[in-house]
């Protein structure tokens, strides 16, 4: 599974990334976590409001920082 956090690097995106790290560790799943900061890439994935979460290239959430519990829920789906 490939998990991507999209955001241009403001405080919210960092918080999101840290939450994702925790969620993956706690779930103990095999995941590749990546942070995408380039605007070109964010835009080409079709995201308009950051921070966003993508799993295996598919956008799962935009515009808000998800909590650890919420990220787990997305990953378990």
């Amino acid at each position, binding site marked *: 599974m490939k998990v991507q956090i999209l955001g*241009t690097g403001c405080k919210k995106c960092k918080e999101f990334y840290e939450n994702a790290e925790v969620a993956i560790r706690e779930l103990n799943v095999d995941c590749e976590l990546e942070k995408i900061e380039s*605007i070109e890439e*964010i835009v080409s994935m079709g995201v308009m409001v950051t921070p966003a979460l993508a799993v295996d290239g598919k956008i799962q959430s935009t515009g808000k920082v998800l909590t650890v519990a919420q990220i787990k829920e997305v990953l378990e789906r």
Partner: protein
Amino acid sequence: MFEKVADIIVRDLFHLGLQSSWGKTFHFFIYDTLKISFLLVFIILLMGVVNSYFPVERIRRFLNGRKLWGIENFLASTLGALTPFCSCSSIPLFIGFLKGGIPLGVTLSFLITSPLVNEVALAIFWGIFGTKVTVVYAVSGILLGTIVGRLLGFLNLDRYLQDWVQELVKQKIQDSAEDAKKTLKERLPEIWQEAMSVFKRVFPYVLLGLSIGAVIHGHVPAGYFEQYITRDNMFAVPVATLLAVPMYANATGIIPVVQSLVSKGIPLGTALAFMMGVVGLSLPEALLLKKVMKIKLIVIYFGTVACAIMLIGFLFNILF
């Protein structure tokens, strides 16, 4: 209600006279903190509900189908006022709108109003300046976005977008899936959580602004600034606007300071021009925009917005 609570805290808890300068300072601080916290939570929640039903994808779809002699600019500007988003989203949004087939002028209307009239600023404005000034502020902000966007739309500025953006805009978009149908009850926990996180983020700035405002309120004599900045001074508004450009205070924090200055003799229009300048024209934002706009477009864009802000400043000085 908040007035009474503040009275009790200042008089009975701190044993300060309500007329002493520290008494005034604390009273202003406590009263305004209570009132503004309440309004903040209320308005952020309200906007959260609106936003939950009208996500940006839907707004984009809505704007795309409408070309109505300028009304689309007004709609974009109003939606910009209603949609809260973090400033780091402005570029993805900008491109997302263009890609969705929305003309540059209409996109700019959205982009201008969004930071200028936002839910946090409105809540604090309402708490501090009262309903009348808040409505006038919101309406002039929305009209500013509408008119400036409309004007810029006539100028065929698309060629001044960065080349990669021009390329990208030509590509088709794959519109994301329909938003899930949820009841308000199902949406509320998420809206509440988001509102609390916004509240927590802005509250320290509000407190800081209120503290500075409170000190000015209690310690600077009334009418103090009148000797320096008078209503008839032609240069006050332009200077206030330009001074604001390098500043990027979280807009909200600055409102209580502005109010204190106004109560001590700075004309409201001049103070507002300063505030709008801080939120609407920031140097960091210009640097961000450089990624998508060529310098010429940034200059035209900022120049027009600056002129419009000065106009609003003059207008407020005449009206109030």
